């Protein structure tokens, strides 16, 4: 097995990801200020922008550890119940169920998405839906590799797999429609990649839409968000406020930005500035060139991902790498789409950049797996010549 050091592809992936995480630390710190803010280092964990500084090296460490762990262990070559993937998926489902129990789950912004685990003086918040997303991707990659072309069997293979995904998504959908929809969408893409017949994939779609519609009808808040998206000016003061403020932040940045740390929108004008709308703050402070640089970094990440997939010789590796890269870059596109008001407001973080420990650490672990896949693929001719 090759190590990261002597594989330029793995090295480049790590570099792009670390640059993105570093940008994230800087901007979470920048966006975290407020007028009456005073740093109290003894309680630093309560300040998200200070917490993020701690997560950065931790994420780097986790990425390195994950990259040392042979990704084939996640496959189901030795049977469904001997693979860690199955157990991770089961654990996610259990945690998701626990979150829904009022005693354990913590409500933030009217949604029950968090598990709070007190450790001494500090409380670690954990978001099981993040874990669920990755476990579904790993599960689908493993199971599709295991069953091979049997995936074309509708009742024996396709429907049960859909059932597993549906259970996970169903546990998330009431509290976090966005993540649930994203998981379903990713699953759909992965099944297509695995070679499922196209009309097979179409059959669960009516159920998905029915579930989404049911959730929407039960939540007037979500209905309003859709309405606000369709008519932003009218809702600028209420539901469309965030999207409108995000546009103001991005637009007022101009080509060159207001300068690092000199943004104004972060002072309460733009809510969720450290998480869902971190991109708007970057665009405000660094201008179009800063915003474009972030997008270019994700494009480079996607291109590196393609190279990993093309070079990888194992089907499982290809599936898994595709799932990881699609998930990360797709989520980035979704987040930026929301920030630029091209999509309705959905609470999706920008991978590596947004504040939030669970997302950052788990994404870093997934990238570690991707690096492992990259480092196990044979070197190209160009690299041999070097």
């Amino acid at each position: 097995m090759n190590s990261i050091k002597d594989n330029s592809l793995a090295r480049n992936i790590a570099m792009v990801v670390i640059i993105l995480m570093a940008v994230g630390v800087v901007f979470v710190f920048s966006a975290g200020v407020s007028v009456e803010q005073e740093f109290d280092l003894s309680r630093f964990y309560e300040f998200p922008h200070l917490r993020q500084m701690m997560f950065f090296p931790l994420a780097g460490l986790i990425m390195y550890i994950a990259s040392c762990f042979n990704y084939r262990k996640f496959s189901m070559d030795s049977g469904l119940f001997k693979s860690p993937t199955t157990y991770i998926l089961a654990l996610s489902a259990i945690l998701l169920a626990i979150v829904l129990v009022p005693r354990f789950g913590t409500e933030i912004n009217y949604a029950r998405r968090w598990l709070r685990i007190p450790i001494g003086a500090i409380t670690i918040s954990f978001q099981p839906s993040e874990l669920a997303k990755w476990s579904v991707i790993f599960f689908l990659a493993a199971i599709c590799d295991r069953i091979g072309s049997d995936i074309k069997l509708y009742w024996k293979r396709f429907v049960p797999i859909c059932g597993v995904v549906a259970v996970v998504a169903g546990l998330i959908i009431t509290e976090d429609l966005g993540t649930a929809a994203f998981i379903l969408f990713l699953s759909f893409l992965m099944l297509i990649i695995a070679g499922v017949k196209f009309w097979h994939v179409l059959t669960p779609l009516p159920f998905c839409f029915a579930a989404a519609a049911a959730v929407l009808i039960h939540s007037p808040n979500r209905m309003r968000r859709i309405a606000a998206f369709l008519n932003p000016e009218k809702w600028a003061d209420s539901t469309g406020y965030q999207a409108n403020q995000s546009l103001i932040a991005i637009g007022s940045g101009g080509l060159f930005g207001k300068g690092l740390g000199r943004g104004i929108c972060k002072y309460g004008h733009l809510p969720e500035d450290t998480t869902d709308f971190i991109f708007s703050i970057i665009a405000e402070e660094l201008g179009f060139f800063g915003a474009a640089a972030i997008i270019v970094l994700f494009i480079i990440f996607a291109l590196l991902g393609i190279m990993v997939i093309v070079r990888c010789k194992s089907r499982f590796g290809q599936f898994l790498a595709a799932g990881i890269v699609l998930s990360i870059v797709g989520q980035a596109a979704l987040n930026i789409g929301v920030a630029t008001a091209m999509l309705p407001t959905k609470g999706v973080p920008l991978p590596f950049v947004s504040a939030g420990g669970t997302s950052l650490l788990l994404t870093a672990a997934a990238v570690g797996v991707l690096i492992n896949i990259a480092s196990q693929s044979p070197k190209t001719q160009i690299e041999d010549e070097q």
Partner: protein
Amino acid sequence: MKHLKIIIILFALLLAALLTLMGRCFYLQFFKSSHYVQICARQQQGRIIHQPQRGVILDCRARVLAASSRIQTIFAEPRTIKDPIEVSNKLADIVDLPAHKICKLITESRNPGFVKIKTNAEVEQCRAARKIYGLGVQSGWKRYYPMANLASHVVGFTGLDGDGLDGIELQYDKNLKGRTGKNVFLADAARRPISDSPFGSNNENYQLRDGVGIILTLDATVQQFARAELLKQYQDFGAESAIAIVASAKTGAILALVSLPDFEPNKVGLAQMDTLRNRAISDEFEPGSLLKPISAAIAIEANAVSKDEKIFCENGNYRGKGFGRIGEYGDHKFGDLGVREILINSSNIGMAKIGQKLGKNKLYNGLELFGFGKKTMLGLPGEVDGKLRPLKKWDGYSITRVPFGQEISVTAIQLVKAFCILANDGKSVRPFLIEAIVDNNGQIIMQKKSPSDVGFVVKPEVANWLVREAMAGVVNEGTGKKAQLKKWQVFGKTGTAQLAKSDGTGYSENEYVASFVAGAPAENPQLIVLVSIFKPDVSLGKGYTGGTVAAPVAGKILEKTLNYLEVESSL
């Protein structure tokens, strides 16, 4: 490898999406940028306006004539108050007002955003009131005039918005006002300022500068003497209006300026329009005999007559072609009189003959040099020129009437200036009111300079002779006896002018201006006092002449002021 193809297609779609987003950013940040920058400016800028403290107006001994002090006003915003009774009860405990009155103010306010509850609230009251939802505290300035009516016409007054509307308040409004401080800053969503720098360096910011203080030449004590004496006489004689001016003879500094009726500047809204006018500078009238010493001085200066020359006064009936008939006041019949006797007896015929000897050119030029026909530039708004008719309009009547003060209109301040010139050895004098302007640290930023128009209007011998011989004679032997003082030699001249009828058909039979101009001590004049009382009520039977009505007032003002200024006794 079918799945690889699918993967590559999906990635291509994803990259296309990212490039689209980049294009969207470019659209927002390049084409729409100015639009959003404007929204930003509206949404994210806060501004604070600091009102400057208006400068003080002080008298020459630093007694306060006008000052501004900070007042806090507790106000309510009725639309935000859900339970007016509860708010009123809470507020009633803080300010000593009955709750039902507060409640009424809140519920019956026409303006849903603002109703004044208590002006001039104390600091503790404001602090407590701020905590009640729906109430607020507004800080402002209130102009006070501690001396009330005393110097109302000189000091003037300000309007509701704090702008000077009359007097020194208007004339020096710019200096007194200072500069409004304006602080434009970037604000967070709760409109708290984000930081002074690096955002604060903005050319829209102005630093607050309080108004400067103005020190007048006016002396509140002298003003009080003058006003009290004048007011008494004004009321005793049922006069329509009255003026008294006290000036420093050698410099022209105005020590007192009273115009009756006056007004209370703290309640200027209640004052009648008629009382707001400063008659000493805004009203012109025919000076009558007051002008005689001036005309005589011009004639002697021009060598048209000599001091000892005898002039035949036609036994009280002087008529001739081109100037009609001139009689004497009180139907006196004078024979040969010297210039001194003409002034002491106030002979009209004598003055008419002096005028004829002098000629209209020299008389006109002389009067112009003494300052008639143009503003004295005292430094108060509303001053008028008076009327010195242009030479080409003079006829035979003019040259025989102007020397004793008809066919010419003057203001009281012009007369004061003219007599100051006589008292100042014939040297030019310009009346003034501003002693100095001081900034907020007490540093003088402008001090009265000695007048630039120095020059002799008449020779010192002529001026001194008129003051010491002729005008002292008026007080000692003639019409001004009631202005005599024990300690000082007073000089002066009476004037009793009939008022022209408003329809322009000659002079009224029972409407007079009773005037007296006086100065003391004659050997070295320190003060000039002018007293003019308009339309004393003839029907009271107390008299109406300058010697009877005005001279005693001038005498008392002189006496008190000379004592106050500790001028050495000269007799």
